[in-house]
């Protein structure tokens, strides 16, 4: 397991400061939730951490190794993987193939041109194991485009697991998932606790408070508070900026 350390990260889109001097220390094995109102810059932050989006300044390190200058594929190889808020899968591939291609990235060269990949037991077994952990093994041979939204979220998780992350960035894994499905998903994530470090962006407050060791609150690109779920829940600044607003919305 590995730590994630973020120092003074910034990102501007024109005059708009989307990420404003964000610093964050996530301990090894911790589940660190990032919450904040819509447009607070949560997904942008995840994109910067994963290397999908370059940062204007600041530094990102995993396990003490600086990865600021590395591309997304390079960071994934070091164990920093992300899932997507908006489902991002290979629609024409089966669920198993979606995961197997992620396994393949970590096991041996992909510059092999002759042997049929569909018959590589090693890849298929590992992919199936990841699907099982995500609760999707019974749909392994269904084309991804034919899966339901909830199944897409699980496939998204299985793909992330298959990259064997040391630090996993989960961008709203529960987006659009409700009821029993959501509960099962939270239980699943809970089982992964301790296996790798997790940064969790989530709107579902129940899930956040059930899973997170610590919570950071992001508002207009700035972290206004970091602490245990209990401390965050009672922080007046947070209540004003976010939780209160949410309660009003609900009411």
């Amino acid at each position: 397991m590995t730590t994630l350390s973020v120092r003074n990260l910034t990102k501007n889109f024109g005059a708009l400061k989307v990420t404003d001097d964000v610093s964050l220390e996530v301990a090894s094995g911790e589940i660190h939730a990032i919450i904040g109102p819509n447009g607070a810059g949560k997904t942008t932050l995840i994109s910067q951490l994963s290397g999908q989006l370059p940062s204007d300044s600041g530094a990102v390190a995993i396990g003490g190794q600086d990865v600021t200058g590395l591309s997304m594929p390079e960071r994934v190889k070091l164990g920093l993987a992300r899932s997507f808020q908006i489902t991002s899968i290979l629609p024409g591939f089966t669920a198993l193939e979606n995961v197997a291609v992620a396994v393949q990235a970590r096991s041996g060269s992909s510059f092999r041109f002759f042997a049929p990949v569909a018959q590589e037991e090693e890849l298929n077994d590992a992919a199936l194991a990841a699907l099982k952990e995500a609760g999707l093994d019974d749909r392994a041979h269904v084309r991804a485009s034919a899966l339901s939204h909830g199944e897409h979220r699980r496939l998204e998780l299985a793909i992330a697991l298959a990259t064997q992350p040391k630090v996993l960035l989960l961008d709203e894994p529960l987006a659009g998932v409700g009821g029993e499905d959501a509960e099962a998903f939270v239980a699943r994530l809970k089982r992964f606790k301790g296996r790798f470090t997790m940064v969790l962006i989530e709107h579902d407050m129940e899930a956040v408070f059930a899973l997170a060791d610590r919570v950071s609150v992001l508002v207009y690109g700035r972290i206004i508070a970091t602490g245990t779920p209990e401390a965050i829940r009672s922080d007046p600044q947070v209540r004003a900026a976010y939780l209160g607003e949410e309660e009003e919305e609900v009411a």
Partner: protein
Amino acid sequence: MMSDVTTAPTATRAPALAGRVKAAALLFVLFALLPPLASALNDPFYVLIGTRILAYAIAAMALDLILGYGALVSFGHAAYLGFGAYAVAILSSYGINDMVLQILGAMVVSALFALVTGAISLRTRGVYFIMITLAFGQMAFFFFISLSAYGGDDGYSLSQKSTVLGTDILHSDYGLYYMALGLLAALFLLCNRIVGSRFGRVFTGIRENATRMEAVGYSPFRYQLTAFVISGCITSVAGVILANQAQFVSPAFMSWHRSGELIVMVVLGGVGTLAGPIAGAAAALLLEEWLGVLTEHWPLLFGLFLVLMVLFSPRGITGVLEKYGIARGKE
């Protein structure tokens, strides 16, 4: 329980793969029967056009490798036909007549050209990729136009056909025809293996969703460039055959019309099927022949046919056959 789930992908996968191979095998048998049929009908002309069809089938299949499986629409692929054809002309003028060496030379030049132009073109996407590959294709075209030692835009007549490992089997039209068929079959098997390999899965995955592939650790560029080079090299083999068939090379082999025709063949046959573009090449060239007899305005009729095909069967000839359950070659 575990084992029957893991063996299932080969079970679900096999029909699709077998379908593609079966459709191609059927085409190859038909091609093999053409020369005896032509001589029985006393119409040897069909062997000549058959050779051209086989050559274009190789090129269309090679283009399908990147167009169908990688969504890389190269509008400059005729350049590689030219490299193949001029490899024959230039090497034979230096006394190198063996087809094996000529193909090797064509592939080396094509690989270098594809490596350089691909490295630049692949920094763009979509329409920009189409336009920049067109531009590079035109550059190659104008290079050979100005190559006066080999006739410039008048072209260059070849004094003899290539030998194959010292034998002169290409001297008969039938020999050349069956050589082309053999090459097509071998290259089809090669492409078929590539598509089903680890590399093929990554390359196809990038077509499906490049960001997703980056997020699991792949850099799309390396895979796309490799496929681009492979496709260019295979296409150049078609040029070597065409030069031997026509006994003449000219920059017309590499004009942008020719690149467009290759795309038409792929679309007509069925994108991303490998076997489809082989049928597409046959359909396009035969239609050109037959409609050309009817009227000099044949491109108009051909265009109409193409529009109808795309409207009613977006997956081309493969789509039509699939509809009637004859072939199932979709990847």
